[in-house]
């Protein structure tokens, strides 16, 4: 590829892997980074300034639980000062009213609150934390009366997808302007728990109908974004809008990744912000250039009419399911490895396996 890539639009900063919850679907890697290896306050501030200069507009502060960082308020202020739109992706646990006040003063633009389930018993079971649901609701109230724009992120899988309409109504009653109904994607801990999390085809069909109905009911009141589970799709998602094309992820220790699961691809060397400027990592780094353009593609992607639309799908999924990061994403119906996905769907257990909670001994 000779064209210089366009600058990135969004950065996902995984400030920490620490989290009071231990969701079985967490997308964090199995090897969690320890606190002592996290970037310092100054380290993150430098990353945000470099990101803004590079062209990043949206900053998503995530984790783990970003509120586990005591310097979150300082980081939000620094990011706003750098000109970024600051979105906090949180479980709500660890955010007190005092901290919310400070975040608001610091210029937080928007907050995304995860919703594990719509009842306390279920939510606490899924997140592996007693009392988490009550604390989340209390936090949501605090967010709303302050007028901080709120998106609810309802995480859908085998145990929650039948409640999708309840979750949507729940978000609307909370006063959210937007809900993301996101089916679990199988990376990190979610992959370990795939048997327990993968919904059935019938569940997915029903959920799609429920979302369509809810969209009509809430038209003009709440935006409903729906991410269906790609195992049941005919074509893959355009992961990250294309490798190294719009998004940039930074792991807690400053490793810069084209997507949050990219570290699972062997043989790719990832740069760290502590060692190289962000712009050099984006434009010239080996990892970001590994799957840009078409040269790396195999057939059928290389000569497919959709190649600029979905970029051959997700590289991490090709790695996971076809053991080859340059393969066609196995969820694609043209993929030579599609039988592997069909096999997983056929093997689906009628009874449900127990969760392996994130962070617990495997």
């Amino acid at each position: 590829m000779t064209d210089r890539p366009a600058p990135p639009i969004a950065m996902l900063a995984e400030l920490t892997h620490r989290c009071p919850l231990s969701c079985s679907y967490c997308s964090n890697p199995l090897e969690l980074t320890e606190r002592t290896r996290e970037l310092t306050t100054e380290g993150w501030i430098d990353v945000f300034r470099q990101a803004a200069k590079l062209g990043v507009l949206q900053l998503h502060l995530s984790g783990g639980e970003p509120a586990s960082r005591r310097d979150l308020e300082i980081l939000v202020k620094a990011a706003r000062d750098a000109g970024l739109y600051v979105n906090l992706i949180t479980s709500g646990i660890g955010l007190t009213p005092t901290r919310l006040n400070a975040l608001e003063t610091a210029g937080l633009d928007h907050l995304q609150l995860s919703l594990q389930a719509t009842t306390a018993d279920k939510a606490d079971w899924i997140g592996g934390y007693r009392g988490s649901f009550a604390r989340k609701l209390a936090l949501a109230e605090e967010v709303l009366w302050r007028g901080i724009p709120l998106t609810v992120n309802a995480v859908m899988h085998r145990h929650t997808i039948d409640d999708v309409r309840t979750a949507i109504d729940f978000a609307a009653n909370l006063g959210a302007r937007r809900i993301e109904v996101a089916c679990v994607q199988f990376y990190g801990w979610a992959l370990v728990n795939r048997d327990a999390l993968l919904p059935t085809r019938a569940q997915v069909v029903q959920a799609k109908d429920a979302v369509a109905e809810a969209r009509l009911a809430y038209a003009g009141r709440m935006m409903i974004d729906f991410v269906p589970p790609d195992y049941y799709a005919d074509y893959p998602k355009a992961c990250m809008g294309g490798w190294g094309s719009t998004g940039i992820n930074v792991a807690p220790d400053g490793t810069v990744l084209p997507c949050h699961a990219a570290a699972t691809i062997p043989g790719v060397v990832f740069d760290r912000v502590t060692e190289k400027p962000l712009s050099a990592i984006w434009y010239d780094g080996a990892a970001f250039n590994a799957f840009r353009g078409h040269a790396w593609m195999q057939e059928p992607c290389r000569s497919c009419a959709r190649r600029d639309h979905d970029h051959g799908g997700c590289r991490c999924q090709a790695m996971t399911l076809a053991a080859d990061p340059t393969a066609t994403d196995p969820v694609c119906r043209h993929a030579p490895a599609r039988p592997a996905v069909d096999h997983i769907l056929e093997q689906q257990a009628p009874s449900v396996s127990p969760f392996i909670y994130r962070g617990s001994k495997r």
Partner: protein
Amino acid sequence: MTTDPVPLLPRGTRLHHDRVRDTMVLLVPERALLLDDIGAAILREVDGRSTLGAISSRLAERYGAPKADVASDVRDFLDGLAGQRLVDYQ
């Protein structure tokens, strides 16, 4: 809602000049919408006080275009954003 409402950008929606791409963008929850000149011109007039009619008159005058055409463009553009809860009418 009246037939000539006042549009406003709710909290969480910001008009921003992107220096790197030298373009105006609308920063909204979890997205950035790159604006063309027309979109940017319309949103610059959204001040939380002017009605759709007032905004259309100003733009029609500035660009020397028929007011009815401008008014329907303004309405379509802002309705699209309002449908996504990125603009409020009051």
